[in-house]
């Protein structure tokens, strides 16, 4: 049984998405992390476009274009600016060392696939794996958010999490209404801006972006 080319393309892109998610989990340099984030955005835009082609829904092209503009160009540029201004290059030692994180990540992926199993049974056989991948990348991004110390990397993780959700929305369920997508895109942009402002405030207060210092805020 030959699977149509565009389906194969989507599966490939989904696999790439998961791979990038793992790469982000393993990456310790902030600039590289932003590059990976942009790459993930590109994959996402491509898969959305492919989905638009298969389903023939024109508004998915719009959301693919939006993803491309926002996640490949605008947000990475914004983040680069921030780290240049804040002079952050390296992530300090993460809370859990990277191999251990990767192992936990594999566990999460298995968990996510198991979880998506009953739902995928109902979906078409081709999108079966995409939902699992989407869930897995959300969980991986969450894991990254937990294990990192710098506020910037946490924000990138947060944005990556949103990517996973977006992938689930477009690939597995053929997209949300355009209005919702526009809203989400705007939210992400505004959210990134707000985070940017917070970075400066955090650094002003603690002279560092290491969230370790925020433990001082705890009431004793």
């Amino acid at each position, binding site marked *: 049984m030959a699977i149509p080319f565009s389906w194969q393309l989507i599966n490939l892109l989904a696999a790439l998405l998961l791979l990038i998610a793992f790469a982000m989990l393993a990456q310790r340099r902030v600039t590289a992390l932003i590059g990976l984030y942009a790459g993930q955005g590109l994959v996402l835009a491509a898969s959305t476009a492919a989905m638009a082609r298969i389903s023939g829904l024109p508004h998915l092209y719009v959301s693919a274009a939006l993803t491309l503009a926002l996640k490949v160009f605008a947000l990475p540029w914004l983040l680069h600016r921030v780290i240049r201004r804040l002079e952050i290059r390296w992530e300090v030692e993460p809370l859990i060392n990277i191999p251990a994180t990767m192992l936990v990540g594999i566990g999460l992926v298995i968990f996510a696939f198991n979880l998506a199993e009953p739902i995928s049974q109902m979906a078409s056989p081709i999108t079966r794996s995409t939902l699992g991948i989407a869930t897995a990348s959300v*969980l991986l991004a969450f894991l990254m958010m*937990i294990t990192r110390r710098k506020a910037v990397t946490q924000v990138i993780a947060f944005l990556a999490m949103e990517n996973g959700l977006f992938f689930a929305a477009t690939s597995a369920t053929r997209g949300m209404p355009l209005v919702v997508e526009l809203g989400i895109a705007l939210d992400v942009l505004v959210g990134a801006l707000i985070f940017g402002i917070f970075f400066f405030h955090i650094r002003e207060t603690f002279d560092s972006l290491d969230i370790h210092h*925020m*433990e001082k805020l705890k009431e004793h």
Partner: protein
Amino acid sequence: MSSSIDGINAALAATTAWLALGMLGLLRPHSVRWVGRVLFPISAALSLVLAGIGLASVLKAPQAAVLPLGLPDLLFHVRLDPLSGFFLFLLGVTATGISIFSAGYFRTGEGTPPGLMCFQYHLFLASMGAVLLADDAYLFMVAWETMALASYFLVTTHHRLPEIRQAGFLYLLIAHVGALGILLCFGVMHGTGWQFTFDAMRTAHLAPGWSSVAFGLALFGFGAKAGMVPLHVWLPEAHPAAPSPVSALMSGVMLKTAIYGLIRVTYDLLGTIRWEWGLTVLIAGSVTTLFGVLFALMQHHLKRLLAYHSIENIGIILIGLGLSLTYIGTGHPALGALGLAAALYHTLNHAVFKSLLFLGAGSIQHVTGERELGRMGGLARWLPRTAFLFLVGSLAISALPPLNGFVSEWLTFQAALLSPALESGVLRSVIPLAAAGLALAGALTAMCFVKVYGVVFLGAPRAPKETELHDVGRWEQTGMAWLAAGCVILGLAPVPMLRLLDHVARLLIGQSLGSQALRSGWLWLTPVAAERASYNPIVFLVLIVGVTLLTFVLVRRFYHGRLRRAPAWDCGFGGLDARMQDTAEGFSQPIRHMFGPVYEMERHLPSASDAKPRFHLEIRDRFWSVLYLPLAGLVEAVSRQVGRLQAGRISIYLLYSFLTTIFLLLFV
């Protein structure tokens, strides 16, 4: 019919008018003249009117109404029946005296400005009125909590002192724990109908197990407010902290609203009464009584001492109620009616004499500026009227005939002595024990007030500055005189009072007091039968007055009749000074010795070789170390464990939400 409807409207109008008076106080919050000379006298008149309304409604059939207030589907229900009428009478009579006293008491420059005090005071009064009138759980709880809050602010009038804030917090804490119990009790009692009117609760049929649960919750909740052991700890802290009229109001009336609530829930709403409840109340009451009086004896702070006596008297009331419940539960409603009447009578009596004593304590504090017994003495010389009125209160609380305290305690004894009528051997043996405890408490109370009166008013002044003192003003004297008159009248006219209480008993138990008790004319009080026991206060009065006069005349006639002024108790020794007098601590030392195991004592005795001999004694409440401190420790430990969740690290918080997500994904 229309006149009864008018009764409830009038009661509501009076309650609302109190609220309005409080608001008026806010108009000129700093003017002592406006608040003291205008508002408080009006308030006293209003209280008198309310007392009249209450008295009239005791004789009438219950009247209910629905107010156009409250939540859309949950309107306020009110009802005025003999029970609430009786307590409104109590509230009115006591508040009259206290308001007159307050007119002269409040001055500027002491904590909360008088206008604000006036507002809180009247809010407190109005909420107590609303508690008594409420006919659904909703209005009851709203009024109950308003009462707790208003009194909290009154207690913390001098909120700049940390120990007063502490006392206020303790009071508020226990009040809330108690309110929780009451709320749960109502929750159990509504049955399955989700109707929170008292009418629905009256008709709801509860399984015996559930009704016992409801009773237990009610006893806990109302017991916390009343000061039942072991929930009494707030009383000795809050009463000394509050200004005296407020202590009087709290001790005299607010504790009684808890008794009202207990009676309302147990007799009226729960319906079928079980004797086990009676036994519980009886035991709790006996313990409370003895505990209260034993600790009162050890106090050397006047208002604290009175607070412990409030605990003791609540215990006496609970003994009466416990007897009544036991008798009803075992199928002797006529005896139950007697016990209830005794309890209600004592409720009213305690309201009157304890308010009087607190006002007296307030007067002493105002005049001398002292709170410790050890720094008073010989005050009768400068405060003759206060001394006399305080003496009346002391005699009443010591249950000496012909004053009112005796009548109700005697009635309680009469109820207890009827225990041979019961079938169960256990009850027959427990009740006399309770009666014996009551007798012991009565004697110890008398001893305690001999101590108080002796140390405060007699002897020589212990602190040097007591030489230029003036008795309190007319307002204060009138307020106290009103309450003292109440002590005398309630003591001299027990039969009319008993007739009044008969209406309440008939409403709640459906059973009249023995016909003998009511038929026996004005003079002779015979609760059961003439050959059993009877009491005539007038005869006592005549006898006491007669013997005194006779002695006086005999001494004047047959003794040499010459008058010689010399220092008392000098014994020819000479050089007496104030330090040679017996002190409060010394006077109660034998009791401290006899009941040693009850107290947690820290004592430092001077030895013969000390260069600077020092005597130090501290008596603590055992309940603190046995019950409250472990409880507080437990709560603290649990919160510390919970607090560990708050690591203050973002990663940890994120981990929480991560794990929660995984958990939800896995299981939901």
